[in-house]
């Protein structure tokens, strides 16, 4: 073992420089020169201010905005500094309680709507930062958003469609609506931009 320690130590140093320093620096160099926007967190800038990342969801509770999936991050919903899921198991009573209160909140914001609530609107995402909802969850909210804004539901629906991504290559993943981008577009329309 002692005889093996010398080459082991030297090799460890070389491989550390190679894989721990050179490799990430090389990737960083390529990333920053080819895709600087993506490499720095896909920041969305409005009027000179960073308003979010195109990849991270945000928390919405205003009836005039589309709501994101529930977030289980501990300190505050959609906490970018500490991602987390609920980790509630299927037989955990707390899970059913949480779903019950989320259903009530949606119903309270939209009293006339008696449709069943799409499941992704009342269950917490894995990351607590999920930027998307399903097309079903968007459709469920269209009437509420339109009413709160005094807009024609069909115009809201068109905006939803414009912010809906299909499956990649028609095969991978699921169709999804980008909530933050959709809400930014709604706000921009309201401000007449």
């Amino acid at each position, binding site marked *: 073992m002692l005889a*093996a320690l010398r080459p082991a130590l030297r090799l460890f140093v070389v491989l550390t420089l190679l894989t721990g320093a050179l490799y990430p620096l090389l990737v960083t160099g390529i990333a920053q020169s080819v895709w600087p926007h993506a490499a720095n967190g896909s920041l969305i800038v409005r009027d000179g201010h960073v308003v979010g990342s195109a990849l991270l969801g945000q928390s919405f509770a205003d009836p005039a905005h589309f709501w994101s999936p529930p977030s289980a991050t501990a300190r505050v919903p959609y906490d970018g500094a500490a991602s987390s899921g609920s980790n509630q198991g299927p037989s955990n009573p707390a899970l059913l309680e949480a779903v019950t209160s989320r259903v009530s909140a949606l119903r309270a914001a939209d009293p006339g709507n008696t449709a*069943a609530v799409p499941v992704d609107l009342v269950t917490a995402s894995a*990351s607590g930062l999920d930027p998307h909802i399903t097309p079903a969850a968007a459709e469920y909210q269209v009437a509420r958003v339109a009413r709160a804004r005094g807009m024609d539901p069909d115009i809201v629906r068109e905006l939803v469609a414009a912010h809906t991504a299909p499956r990649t290559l028609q095969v991978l993943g699921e169709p999804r609506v980008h909530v933050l981008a959709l809400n930014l577009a709604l706000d921009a329309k309201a401000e007449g931009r």
Partner: protein
Amino acid sequence: MNAHDWVQVLFYLAVLLAIALPLGAFIAQVLEGRRHALTPLLGGVERLCYRAAGVDPAREMGWKAYALAMLAFNAIGLVVVYAMQRLQGALPLNPQRLGAVSDHSAFNTAVSFASNTNWQGYGGETTMSMLTQMLGLTVQNFVSAATGIAVLAALIRALSRRSADTVGNFWADLVRSTVHVLLPLSLVLAVMLVSQGVPQSFRAPVAATVLEPATASDGSPVTQQQIVVGPVASQVAIKQLGTNGGGYYNVNSAHPLENPTPFSNLLELLAILLIPAALCFTFGRMVGDPRQGWAVFVAMAVLFVAFLGVTLWAESQPRPALHALGVDAQASESQPGGNTEGKETRFGIVQSALWATATTAASNGSVNSMHDSFSPLGGLAPMALIQLGEVVFGGVGSGLYGMLVFAILTVFMAGLMVGRTPEYLGKKIEAFEMKMASLVVLIPPALVLLGTALAVSVPAGTATLGNPGVHGFSEILYALSSAANNNGSAFAGLGAATPFYDPLLGIAMFFGRYALAVAVLALAGALARKPRVAPGAGTLPTHTPLFVAMLVGVVLVVGALTFVPALALGPIVEHLQLQGAR
């Protein structure tokens, strides 16, 4: 579940096979030290490593020297990663000014990353500085995977050589695997991931002013969201390729910055199984009979698809209790439905179930959904895949050497049935080989079951459960299974960063890795010394569908005999309870 779900699965498996085949041939060239396509580019780097270390790659080692070199190298990694975590507060590249990691957590993480487990008792973005992640953890991601390939290479050589005293040179295998296989693949994958939105920078977190203030748990409004970036893509690439699984962020590849799109998900999923699958074909080439590699690959693939089917079906089922609350969880054109708790919208049910199966079949352990929130049977399948001993593709190198041990066990059992001396690839399997094989098969279950028994019988073991009832037991069983088999995924509700779990799981990871690796090298030493006998009339061919079926049977029977009682106390009871509550 519908036809489209299986299209996603078939697409994945087809692409995987199409890349694994040529890669397997390439790795065989690398391990045999022959010239290959990347030699002009990387041969110089390889020679530089030998010169710096002062080793001669052509000098062959016996199994004991090989094992000592492996242990010495890994011991250094353990010490360095431990020290780096304890001292990170005083080291550079720490823009968030994170302090020293606690001693028990640092021990756990050091063992975890050296042993290719990458169990994470900590939240990445809130615990580890950029320097620790990069110079400590990323390095271990490479060298722990290369260690696995090296041990496997020794075993394969032992099977293909006749009456030899040596099994190769550890330093050469380590350097070649790192420089020619892991580095180029990681570079390509990391760059492709950046193109999808995975960050790669050294900047401090950015504070974004959010559209609507969010309400904190204490009721105060929060107007800012921290966007944490770092050298993420470079770490994610090797964490997937090296079956490591330790993510940059707390929620691993469920984090939108670690895995932003369905395409990045495909790339990462391919990377999870790529090298373990390719090594099957490497094995076939190196023993001079590609059919042997195919037989092992098919056995793994059969088990993979069977367990995937269970998880996919279980997670697609809407929960009756939610329907009663006025929730729609039926699959339709506009939503995948099913059990969406702890899943990301862009992945839905299929990509989540596929990932859960791949990451537990391989000893990867990264997640893109929260296994703790899976339905009882949906969570049972990934746990069982881990408990089978991480041999369904398994860890880089370690999965195949585990499966080859099962192949030896299979020919032994077949030999008992017909009363002949068993042989594998012309090597007679005798008492010493069976002792080593039994150690490899028995050590992980012993660690899992004894560790679980200990944890459920002391207050410190049950104090940090995340869920009440039998699901809490499942969390403990999953944690020990994951650690002892070097997987690293978790039923993450269990608070495991405690002075009780950190050392317990650390010990399980240590012996689950190094006791097995040494036993495999001892087995290699014994096999190398044997002559190769010509197949006779009583020899069981090991490339036929019959052998594949027997191999699958032995893996399942050994796993079932060992773990069904424990599983019956956890996920199976929970399933029955939920059914009964209807």
